[in-house]
Structure formats: structure tokens, C-alpha cells
């Protein structure tokens, strides 16, 4: 929807199985439980790492659904 208006979007995903069916333009798969999309509460550094990694995907022109894995180094 947003891409059709020229606005790129990226989704955090907790369930890769669902992402593979829905095939959104860009998603960052994070290895956390449901309800914890940005990792851990009150952990600003981890939350920012996840946000920056997902937002950096907005610069990619995608032609098919792109899924990247977040690894907390």
C-alpha cells in the first residue's frame, strides 16, 4: 500500500513462517518472543540497533520480498 504511493516500508517480524506467506517488501526477522518485537523492554541500545538495521533496508530497491535476519552482536 505504502510502496504503491512511493513510500518505502519495512516490517519487524517475529514469525518468519507468516512473513514467508504474506511476502511484504522488506522485513527484519528478530529472534525474540511474540510481544517483544524490539527485543527487550528498557534496553534502548538493543532497540535502536534493531530500528537502525530495519530502517537501513529502506534504502534497498526491492523487486521481491526481502527478509533479513537480525543478529545481536
Amino acid at each position: 500500500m505504502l510502496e504503491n504511493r512511493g513510500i518505502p516500508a519495512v516490517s519487524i517480524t517475529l514469525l518468519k513462517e507468516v512473513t514467508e506467506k504474506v511476502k511484504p517488501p522488506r522485513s527484519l526477522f528478530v529472534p525474540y518472543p511474540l510481544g517483544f518485537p524490539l527485543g527487550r523492554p528498557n534496553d534502548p541500545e538493543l532497540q535502536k540497533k534493531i530500528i537502525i538495521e530495519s530502517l537501513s533496508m529502506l534504502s534497498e530497491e526491492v523487486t521481491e520480498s526481502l527478509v533479513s535476519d537480525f543478529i545481536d552482536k
Partner: protein
Amino acid sequence: MAKISDMKMKYRIFMKTYKYRSLEWKSGVSLKKPLKDSRIAVVSTAGLHTPEQPPFKTDLPGGDFSFRVLPEDTDLGNLATVHPSGSFDHSGIEADANLSFPLDRLRELKNEGRIGESAPRHLSFMGLMLSPEKLVEDSAEEAADIFQEDQVDGVLLVPV
């Protein structure tokens, strides 16, 4: 790591039998400027709303496809949620709304010069929509109108 096979049985059956929709989207779209100069908006599905806004309805057949506009100066400590889903642990979001609606993080990233700015309006949905047709036909178009009006450069979707 979250897996459908680890969910409670009623959610597992639902997730396995649900007919997922995959929408067509225009390929070749990307940020038109560097991230450090871009205006970023967030869409959360944690069912968050301000105390002045009506809560999401939990008894609508097919789900509540409406959304709430959360302005940039929203105080995260004041947000309420009525997300009724027992499919996930709500304790994290209750302890820190940034976990699904990272407004404080966007403000920090702006101050650190890593994004241009946090958009004037962000959006909150509830998720749990069993018949998302209305969402696609109405709410998603309205949401896109808002982001276009606000000249948003890129959007971060944070489902719970």
C-alpha cells in the same frame, strides 16, 4: 525465537488454517534521500491509544480495523492498550511501550543524527483482524494519505 508450533493450541490451529493475504506492491521503491535526512513514521499493532482516544473494540466480528493517530509529542507513559490477544506476553510492552512503539528511540536517533526526524503523526492499530478486507480497502488508504500529507520518507511497521 517465536514459532507457531510453540503457541497455545487454539492459536496454533488458527495460524495454521488462516488464509494469509499477500498484496501486490510496487517494486523498485526506496528512500529518496539518506536515512540521516529522512522523516520516519512508525505503525504499531499493539492496540495503543492515548487516554483521550476511544479504546479499540474487542467485540467486533472480524476485528477492529480502525486506527489511532499518535502525535510526535505523545507521552509514552500515558498510553493505554486493550489488546485482548492471549497469543503473546504483554508484560514487555506494559513495562516499556517503546518495545512496540519506539517513539523515544526515534527522538534519540534524531538527536544522534542517524535519522532526519520522527514524523509528526504515527499510527496505532490493534492487529487481530480476522477479515482484513476493510483494513485494506479503507484504513490502509487513509493511513497512506496521512503519511503522504506529512511527507514521510519511510515507515517502520512493528507488529507484536
